[in-house]
């Protein structure tokens, strides 16, 4: 049964949290023993996760910077997690950024960090319900829906199983934006069968409170529906418009793809 919105989520620090595990992969210390134990377990069978996380973060930076360069000034970071280095508002000085997460600790931390940062807001909400997210006073108060908005879905939709209709979630956000709005999407998965190590990691996630759903680049493209996918399409995360001067691909066989799509 769905938890009613007025009943708070449990704050159980003995359970690993996606947000804090992600922070640990990025080298942060915004995490607890349970998070680190879980992260270490994953890293043991699949060390590629750490570089994947870094390349995902780098993709987000490149995508946001690119969009800001095109004049987009409004961003909603859906499943923003623990604010860490290279947060969206730091990439777009003067822009407006709403951070959305349903992890109460991540939200509390975000609020502490961003309390005095103008142009930012933090929303405790489940990104799977676009209408609810968009209806929150923070979103309505901060963003101008007559101007393009970039909806950031970085490394979150792989926690949404097919039965929860991830494509509808994407479409729900895209529908709220005027033409020229964008969806920024990165996703775990790959186009070949999993190695035993990857299977093991997936199995660990499956048993966790947040099972991981791997999708192929083709499936990820489907999630974007009829939006216009920008060049170079749905590609490996580190291959999405890599920076000049980045001479090395990340270590290991990072499994994930990314894309930016525009609503016309």
């Amino acid at each position, binding site marked *: 049964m769905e938890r009613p919105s*007025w*009943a*708070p*989520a*449990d*704050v159980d*620090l003995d359970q690993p949290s996606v947000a*804090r595990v992600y922070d640990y992969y*990025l*080298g*942060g*210390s*915004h*995490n*607890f023993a349970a998070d680190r134990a879980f992260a270490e377990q994953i890293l043991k069978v699949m060390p590629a996760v750490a*570089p994947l*996380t*870094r390349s995902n*973060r*780098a993709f987000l*930076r*490149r995508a946001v910077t690119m969009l800001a360069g095109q004049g987009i000034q409004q961003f909603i970071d859906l499943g923003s997690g*623990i604010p860490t*280095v*290279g947060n969206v508002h*730091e*990439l777009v000085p003067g822009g407006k950024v709403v951070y959305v997460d349903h992890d*109460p*600790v*991540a*939200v*509390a*931390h975000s609020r*502490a*960090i961003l309390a005095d940062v103008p142009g930012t807001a933090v929303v405790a909400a489940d990104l799977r319900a676009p209408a609810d997210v968009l209806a929150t006073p923070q979103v309505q108060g901060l963003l101008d829906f007559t101007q393009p908005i970039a909806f950031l879905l970085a490394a979150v939709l792989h926690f949404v199983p097919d039965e929860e209709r991830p494509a509808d979630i994407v479409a729900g956000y895209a529908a709220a934006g005027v033409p020229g709005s964008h969806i920024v999407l990165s996703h775990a998965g790959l186009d070949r069968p999993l190695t035993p190590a990857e299977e093991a990691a997936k199995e660990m996630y499956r048993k966790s409170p947040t099972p991981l759903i791997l999708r192929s680049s083709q499936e990820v493209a489907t999630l974007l529906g009829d939006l216009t996918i920008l060049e170079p399409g749905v590609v490996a995360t580190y291959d999405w418009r890599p*920076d*000049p*001067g*980045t*001479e*090395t691909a*990340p*270590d290991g066989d990072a499994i994930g793809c990314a894309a930016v799509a525009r609503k016309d």
Partner: protein
Amino acid sequence: MTALSPTPTSWDRPRDRAAERLARSWSLAIAGTSYVSMNGLEVQDFLTALSSRLIHALTAETFDPDDVREVGSTLVATHFTEPTTLERTVAVIAEQFAKAPTRRVAEIQGALAAGYAQALRDRVLDEQEEIRTAALWARARAEESRRVSEARFRAIFAGAAIGMSVSTVDGQVIEVNQALCDMLGYSSDELRLMTFEDFVHPQDPPVAAGMFEELLSGGRDQFRIEKPYLHKDGHQVWTDLVASIIRDEDGEPKWLVAMFEDITERYLLQLRLRHQALHDPLTQLPNRTMFFDRLAELLAGAEEEAGSRVGVCYLDVDGFKVINDTLGHDVGDQLLQTVARRLARSISGDGQLVARMGGDEFVVLIERSEGTDDVVAVAERALDTVRAPVHVGGHEISISASIGVVEQPLRGTSTGELMKAADTTLYWAKADGRNRLALFDAERHAREVTRYELSASMPAALERREFFVEYQPLVRLGDAVTIGVEALVRWRHPRFGVLGPDAFIGMAEETGLIVPLGRWVLHEACKQAARWQAEHGAKAPLMSVNLAVRQMRDRTIVRDVKAILEQTGLAPDRLQLELTESAVMGSGGEPTEALNALAALGPRIAIDDFGTGYSNFAYLRHLPVHSLKLAGSFVAGLRPPEGADPVDQKIIAAVIGLAHALNLSVTAEGVETAEQADRLLALGCDTAQGWYYASSGPASAIKL
């Protein structure tokens, strides 16, 4: 926040180039070791600035460890936080400064590592502090909202208008609210000492136990039933109960939450409405709806219980309308109440239902009848109980009733048929003189139905030309020459075949159809007579046509006869109209007006069936009558070969004598034997008709 600007102490070109070289190697070494929010070029610039400071530290006369420590902390601040980054940085310094004094290089490496470690420790502690604070804050917030939501829940639970309880799945009540206490009359302490068994009620819906079991075993999450409870003071409380299961983390049923809405008033109202819907307000007996429901139930079960029978007594109080009209409706109502009370008291056996159908009609349904006797016994008891005088409003009223009794197998009948039979039988009882019962007779019923069907289909039959006319010769007794014919109507019925006048003329008189039918017959007969007149001239036979009483009373008869004679061209004296005595005489015994008018048109007038009415010779002499037809019953008296009935013979002789005295001719009907013909001739009778001469037939069969 991304890149802190390292501040070089001084700049010169060779040192810049060295710094760039160092930065390039350094950047290659640490690429991808930590996540930093910079692209490759930015990293290069960032490291170039730091490299300048390292080269400065290497070449300065006195070593300033603080500046190098700051290089270490700057790396951490830019999020070069992975230990690998430091490891490779130290290695790059050793490699790039290989030609420098070992001691200074070691100092640089040490200071950088120290600065890095210090910054990393501070950063980790800060982040741990931050996340812990966030966690505490989130937890406090969660607990606060839980407290609020629990308080909200508690307020809902305590203050709800509906009763609520929480129990363990073992059946132990652990929590109840005030509304439930009020509803059942127990204190919450008392209720908490009770278990599910204490709430089982004999009137629980039969499905309740099964649903309850399913709920507690986890097979279903919720059910809703209407269930009675016993209030502490003994009265019954009806509730709309919704019971839900709450599961633990493993999905096993843990708590049972029940909500009770008191629907006692609604329930009692429903009972009352149901009673009202099925009972007669005046007598409180079951009403016709209930009677028909029960009967329909019986009929529905007829297939299962082959051979079972049913009885219905349809009772009507005799003369009730008169009582109502003379003594008033109040008295009538009280009388009905008395009758109802008596019937209910005397007929109260198992499977016997007394109901009021409406007005003064009552009905008794006898289930599982063993036979007609059973039902007749009940009907007789009903008649007896109704017969006792009733004292109402100072009047002693003697009443009686009539009952139609139907008793038959359930299988093969229907509500409609059964009630129609009962109604018909009641009518028989009334027609037979009231204060009695009549037993349904299927054959009699069938006859009546047939008769009704005939009567109803007659107008259409006339239109469809199902009627036709036959002719029976009238023979002169002296020489057996046919001097006339009697027109006789027949009905070629599509189902019953050819019917004679006896089968339908009576009905036609009742319904009035005799008028158009008679007119049609007269027209047909005159047409035929005109044909014969054309063929045979003066030797053409007389056409004798019957006119019924009803026709004679119809104002158009004279005009009709006149018109038909004109249309057919028949000479009026070739037509004879046969009228019964009652058609000739008015109700006061005087001749009808029509008779004279008809006679004036020219046809002969014959009195049909003479001798069966008053046979008033006194009037006869003044009437425009030409002939008498002796009723067949007299003629039958002449028939027995062993000797004619002397009385009949004398009457016939007298009638013939008188008729002749009045200058009337006499025709004998129904002559079947030569003896009869001989005797009639001997008695002076003029003409005769009957099988002895010829039966009726088509016009073509008449020998002239």
